[in-house]
């Protein structure tokens, strides 16, 4: 009886304040959309780190025929130089740092190049004999790239040592900036949502002051008087959060999984499964935000 009475009050309120409730839903939706995007971006960064840091970390590029690097003054790398570099990489000095080494010859580099750019204009654009040979080194600790770099800085036959993580780190930096922007927008929008919920609750309480006045007079408990208002805010915010989750799922399904995944070869992007993990979090944030702001508002504007 009690709960059905409260529910009828709640839905009465939602109907009466339809435009305000709709604005709460929309503002919550937009703010949580940014929150969700920020979380998904971070999940993507985490996933990419796991993927890449496990793989080749440092590439020791060997001299091609016409390199201008000082260590390549003698022309294309010779077989003896290759053997000596391999011996160094697998030798005692670097044993503590190097985990795995493999040699990538021109044929393999060509195949990987074409795989990576399959379907684009770059596919097949570089002939096999122009590909560069390299040693791919996996480090024990990804941070110790500098040791390998210094070790080979003056070695004849080594054109350049490239820390591939550095390229990734740039990408991660961009994604972190994007996350920060999303978080900043989300914070502003969340503040808007909190203020809007407070205003909506005040209006709602004002339009029902007759009822609440009588309720106080006949001894209804505070929880009973305030619950419909709190639920009104919470339901609106939860709807907004669910909507944000649904839109994120659509974007990820069609945009990321459907389109971007086809473009980005090799590694996994965020999936609808990730959105399903994020959505309950968003709904939780929405409910807590609306609950807290409406309880505070009611404490200020509805006396006992």
């Amino acid at each position, binding site marked *: 009886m009690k709960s059905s*009475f409260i529910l009828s009050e709640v839905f009465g309120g939602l109907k009466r304040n339809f435009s305000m409730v709709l604005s709460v839903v929309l503002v919550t939706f937009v703010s949580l959309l940014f929150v969700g995007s920020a979380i998904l971006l971070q999940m993507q960064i985490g996933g990419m780190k796991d993927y890449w840091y496990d793989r080749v970390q440092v590439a020791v590029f060997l001299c091609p025929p016409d390199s201008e690097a000082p260590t390549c003054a003698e022309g294309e790398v010779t077989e003896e130089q290759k053997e000596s570099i391999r011996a160094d990489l697998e030798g005692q000095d670097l044993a503590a740092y190097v985990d795995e080494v493999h040699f990538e010859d021109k044929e393999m580099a060509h195949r990987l190049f074409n795989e990576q750019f399959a379907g684009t204009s770059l596919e097949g654009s570089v002939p096999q004999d122009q590909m560069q040979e390299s040693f791919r080194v996996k480090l024990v600790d990804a941070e110790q790239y500098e040791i390998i770099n210094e070790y080979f800085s003056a070695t004849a036959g080594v054109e350049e040592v490239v820390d591939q993580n550095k390229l990734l780190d740039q990408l991660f930096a961009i994604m972190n900036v994007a996350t920060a922007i999303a978080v900043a927008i989300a914070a502003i929008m969340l503040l808007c949502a909190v203020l809007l919920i407070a205003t909506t609750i005040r209006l709602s309480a004002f339009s029902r002051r007759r*009822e609440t006045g*009588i309720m106080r007079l*006949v*001894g*209804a408990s505070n929880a*009973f008087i305030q619950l419909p208002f709190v639920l009104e805010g919470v339901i609106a915010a939860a709807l907004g959060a669910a909507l944000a989750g649904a839109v994120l799922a659509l974007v990820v399904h069609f945009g990321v999984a459907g389109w971007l995944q086809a473009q980005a070869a090799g590694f996994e992007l965020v999936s609808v499964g990730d959105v399903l993990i994020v959505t309950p979090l968003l709904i939780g944030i929405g409910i807590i935000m609306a609950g807290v702001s409406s309880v505070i508002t009611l404490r200020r504007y509805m006396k006992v």
Partner: protein
Amino acid sequence: MITFESVTKSYDSKAEPALDDVSFTAEAGEFVFLVGPSGSGKSTVIRLVLREEIPTSGRIRVAGKSIVKMPTWKVPYLRRSIGTVFQDFRLLPNKNVFDNVAFALHVIGKSSASISTLVPDVLETVGLEGKQKRYPHELSGGEQQRVAIARAVVNKPGILLADEPTGNLDPATSQDIMDVIDRINRNGTTVLMATHDGEIVNRMNRRVIELADGVIMRDEERGSYQVGA
């Protein structure tokens, strides 16, 4: 049932207090009129009994409980033992007679079963049988006040507070309302009624407490109105 001990209430520390060192006791089942000009403190007494206000100093006991230091969460339970009617009825315009009375029971968590027996009973007590489906705008002022009284006493409170209940009604209708309140009092409910209506006070011949500028001027068993006499 209601005890004030040296109760002082100031709304503004600079101005004269609304009530100044007021003490009285209304026993269970008693009928007490509060009379006095506007601003004499009648409504403040009503609000203090309801604990809508807290006295600046002094002690108040209502229905056996000291209410000054009562924690906020207990106040609703105090109010369940008090029925209140006002000059302006305070009915919900979008609910019919039955639902207006039932509302008071719904919001304190009564079951539908008890509501469906309590409401018709109390509507009969106040003389509104057969008008359950009417809306407030379809009723006369006297009938609306009967609905308000029904709502105030449907939960069988020990105390009925009435703040100028006949203030908006003509003399004949006022007398009908007084008959209803008198009947409720005879059933054992303590009544504390603030009023301007001298004729009613004189006719009822009950205890009268006269307030002026927040001070009790007289407190008479079987008193009459004579404000400022």
